[in-house]
Each structure stands twice: as C-alpha cells, then as structure tokens.
C-alpha cells in the first residue's frame, strides 16, 4: 500500500465526529452565553438602584438598608427548610435503598417523585389555607414554653403565616429533590464495599456508616445544595404563605421577607427606580446562589484524596 492510506481520511466516518463535536461545543457555549446574558442584564438594570441617592430607594435609607433584611429572611427560610428536610430525606432515601422490601421501595420512590411534580403554587395554597391554621396552636405553645429563646418569642402570629410556616412548606418542596438524588447515590454504592463491611461483622446500620454514607457524601452535599437552590429561589409558596414584614428574630411572629417573594409581590406595580431596585435584589439572590454552589464544590473537592477516585 502507498502512504496515502495513512494520510487520507475516510470522509463518512469523520463527518459524524465533526458534527457531534460541533454540536457539543455549541451547546456548551450556549449555556455560557445565557448565563452571561442574564448576569449582564441584572448588572446593567441594577446600576441605577445601586448608584441612586439613598433617599430615593424604598425605605429612604439606601439600597443596602433595603436589601439586607430580606437577604437574612431568605437565608432563614432556606435554612429552616434544609434543617427539616435533610435528615428526613436521607432517612427516606436510606429506607428505600437499603431497608424496604423491593416492592415497597419501588412504590415509595414513585410517591416521592410525585411530590416533586406538585406545582409550587399548590404548595403555597396548601400552606396558607391549611398548614398555617393548623400549626398556630403549636406556635402558641412554643411562645408560652420556649418563649425565652429569641426565635420563639411571643406573641405568636394568630394566623400562623410566619417564616417558620414558610420554611416548613419549603422543606416539603425540597424533600423530593434531596431524597431522589440521595437514593440514586446510595444505590450506586459498590457492592464490594458493602460486603467488605458486612464480612467484618458489621450490622446493617454499621455497614451504612462505613461504606454507604462515606461513598455518598459528595452526592448528599450536591443534593442538599440543589435543594438549597430551590429553597432560596422559591417564590410562589413563600409569597402565599408568609405574612411579610420587617426583619424579626422570632420565627413564629409575622414578619420577615424573602428576596424572591419580595420581587414577585412588588414587580407588577413597580416602575422606574423601583424596578431597578427589585432587579438589584435579583442580582443579590443570583450572587448568593452562585456562592452556595461554589462553597458546595469546594467542600466536595476538599476530600478528594479520600473519595476513592484515585
């Protein structure tokens, strides 16, 4: 054969490669372009609010004074949601992946996925119309018995439309995300590692502690962060459930507000500088979410040496 057999390319085989790599490149660039576009929009639109004289911003004390209470409110609501949802989600996921009989596990997994399919406005309506009313006696009890804690300081809200109620509703909403992602990770635990633990004389729970949870740790963190992302950005449920107001330490009084709900409630009637202010609030939310994701990545990579990937 001549040298041409090495240098000439087979047209048909290479074309597929080129189309595929081109399409993959385009898809990757598109994501970057969209992200950049959104960020650019937020920054450009937010500049008037950030540079305006303090007296012209809502509240009359400047953008920072306006934004920080609702940043705190957002973080509190999301934190409540995660504190409630994470242990339950991990427990449910472990039950499905390692404890439940196979028939029950499949059904339960399906039900959890169904929870994720309920629209957020429905959760909001349920929280406002049902949960808030039913839970207010519990708030009264907390105010009477645990009132010495600033977070349970009375008098409790009579309607029950508090940040704690909003946090509970958010917990129900993020539960399916954390559960189904954790379950997938738990199921991927190498059989070899599970058997290593069992063969040493581990009980089922010890086997889970020794092999399943360490293996799943980065996955659980990712799942929780995705849940946090949803809790931070959730709008409709909070807007319906929370009777908003100024920042208060007590979780069982009305008050507090989240960024997403603040934007949704005020945007329709806003104009001029007010629109700018709300978009600036959106920019802050965007930055918070970005920071949360970067922290999650940092936590995951910090333990790379022990991840089993080497």
């Amino acid at each position: 054969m001549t040298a041409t057999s090495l240098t000439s390319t087979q047209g048909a085989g290479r074309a597929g490669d080129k189309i595929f790599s081109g399409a993959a490149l385009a898809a990757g660039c598109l994501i970057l372009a969209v992200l950049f576009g959104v960020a650019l929009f937020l920054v450009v639109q937010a500049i008037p609010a950030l540079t305006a004289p303090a007296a012209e911003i809502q509240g009359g004390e400047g953008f920072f004074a306006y934004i920080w209470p609702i940043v705190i409110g957002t973080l509190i609501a999301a934190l409540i949601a995660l504190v409630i949802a994470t242990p339950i989600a991990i427990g449910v996921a472990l039950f499905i992946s390692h404890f439940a009989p196979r028939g029950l596990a499949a059904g339960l997994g399906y039900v959890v996925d169904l929870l994720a399919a309920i629209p957020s406005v429905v959760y909001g309506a349920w929280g406002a119309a049902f949960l808030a009313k039913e839970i207010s006696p519990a708030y009264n009890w907390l105010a009477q018995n645990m009132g010495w804690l600033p977070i349970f300081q009375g008098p409790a809200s009579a309607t029950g439309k508090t940040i704690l109620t909003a946090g509970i509703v958010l917990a129900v909403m993020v539960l399916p995300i954390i559960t189904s992602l954790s379950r997938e990770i738990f199921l991927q635990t190498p059989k070899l590692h599970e058997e290593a633990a069992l063969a040493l004389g581990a009980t089922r729970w010890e086997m889970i502690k020794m092999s399943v949870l360490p293996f799943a740790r980065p996955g659980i963190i990712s799942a929780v962060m995705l849940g946090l992302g949803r809790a931070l950005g959730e709008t409709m449920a909070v807007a319906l459930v929370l009777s908003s107001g100024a920042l208060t330490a007590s979780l069982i009084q009305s008050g507090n507000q989240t960024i997403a709900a603040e934007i949704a409630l005020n945007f329709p009637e806003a104009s001029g500088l007010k629109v700018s202010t709300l978009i600036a609030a959106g920019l802050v939310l965007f930055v918070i979410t970005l920071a949360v994701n970067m922290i999650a990545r940092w936590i995951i990579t910090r333990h790379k040496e022990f991840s089993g990937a080497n």
Partner: protein
Amino acid sequence: MSKRIDVKDLNVYYGDFLAVEDVTINIEAKSVTAFIGPSGCGKSTFLRTLNRMHEVLPGARVEGEVLLDGDNLYGAGVDPVTVRSQIGMVFQRPNPFPTMSIRDNVLAGVKLNNKKISKGEADVLVERSLKGANLWNEVKDRLDKPGSGLSGGQQQRLCIARAIAVEPQVILMDEPCSALDPISTLAIEDLINELKDQYTVVIVTHNMQQAARVSDRTAFFNIAGTGKPGKLIEVGDTHTIFSNPTQKATEDYVSGRFG
C-alpha cells in the same frame, strides 16, 4: 484461636435455583484448604455460605449444617453478624474502604459494635496486623494516607490485615490473587503459608498451581452442565488430588484434559 469447620449435607439456593448440591466436607483447623473447579461450579457460592455472606443477596438461602467446632452457624438464634466477626473474608478484588486511612481500615472491624479501644492499644494492633499481613514496612510512614492509594497487591494485603485484626477463627479467601500481578500473588501466597500457623484458611482459586503451592488439602467442585447444581466431587490431601485422584473427573481437570 482457630477452629475446624464441618459441613453436613449442605444445599445452597438462589431463590428456587439449587446452585450447590449436597456438600459434606471437613475443613481442618490450622491448615489451608483450597477449592478448585471450573467457572460456575459453585465454589465461591459455597465459600460464602461458610460465613453467612451468601444470604446477603436477596432470595439466597441454604439447607443443612455448617458446624464451627460443633456449633451450627445456621442454628436458631445465631446472629450472622457474630458469625462474620469470627470468620473473616478476603474478596476477589481488593476492597479497602476508600474514605478511610490505612490505619482506620485496619481498625474498621475492631471498632464495630461500639467497641472502644485506646490509642495505645490501637497502635499496637495496627502494627501487629500489618506485620501479620507483610505490609508494615511498606506503609508504616503513611498510615494516615488513604488505603485506596496503595497498589493492588498492597490493597489486598491491607484487606488481609483488616481481616486478621479482629482475630477471627477462620479466614475465607475468594480468589484473592485473581486481580493481582505475579509478584503480588507471590507475596499473598507466602502470607497464606504464614497465616496457617494461626488460622484456618480456606481459599478459592482458579489457578491449580496456586492450589498445589499453598494448600494442604484440596476440594474439587464440578458442574454437570449449565443450569445444573454444582457438586463436590472429591476432597483429599493436595498431593493425592494432584497426583492420584480417585475420581476420573478430578484427574481430567487437574491434568488439563477438561472440556
């Protein structure tokens, strides 16, 4: 601290499928017993019934008796967790816990069931176990590094150290060298020779030379065809099995005339 195992009329099932039929065998204490036979003949399955790891798979069960110095492992009220802490196991592929350091891997079994151990005792135990597995000199300066960073052969010896740290009566090895290079294999075989001074060792191997090198007694398993149960054909002194077996099937297999 080593005990003998006597198996009587053991049938092993996966659901309704009879995988291994009617095995009766005596495994002597402080000796090495090798299981040989073609793929799929049930020797690994049978090995896993000796520390009740077989039943970890859904639907898997056994009928019959496995006596550890006279105590039936499958008797009423026997906890498989206790059985497994007395009968250790080394797997086909090295499986140190990837998130644990070398030291924690060795101590993993010891710390189970809420047992507490002081740092001094732990240090002694780690050194003794790693020396017992011929790994101490290679890892003594990096005990806090992850076990998954070791070579395959070192990882397998780490798994052996982890198994002997709990001072079991018996050590089961399921093709411990099949994923290792010849030099690592030699290291493991030397180790098996040392282990039998203290422990009862049972090893499954595909490699007949290995069985001939390391074992005192050899059991040959065979299978009549796909879908049929595996059976124990013959068991005896390794020398006899390889030079003068009583069964034709054994002779065919050990001399390589096996279809």
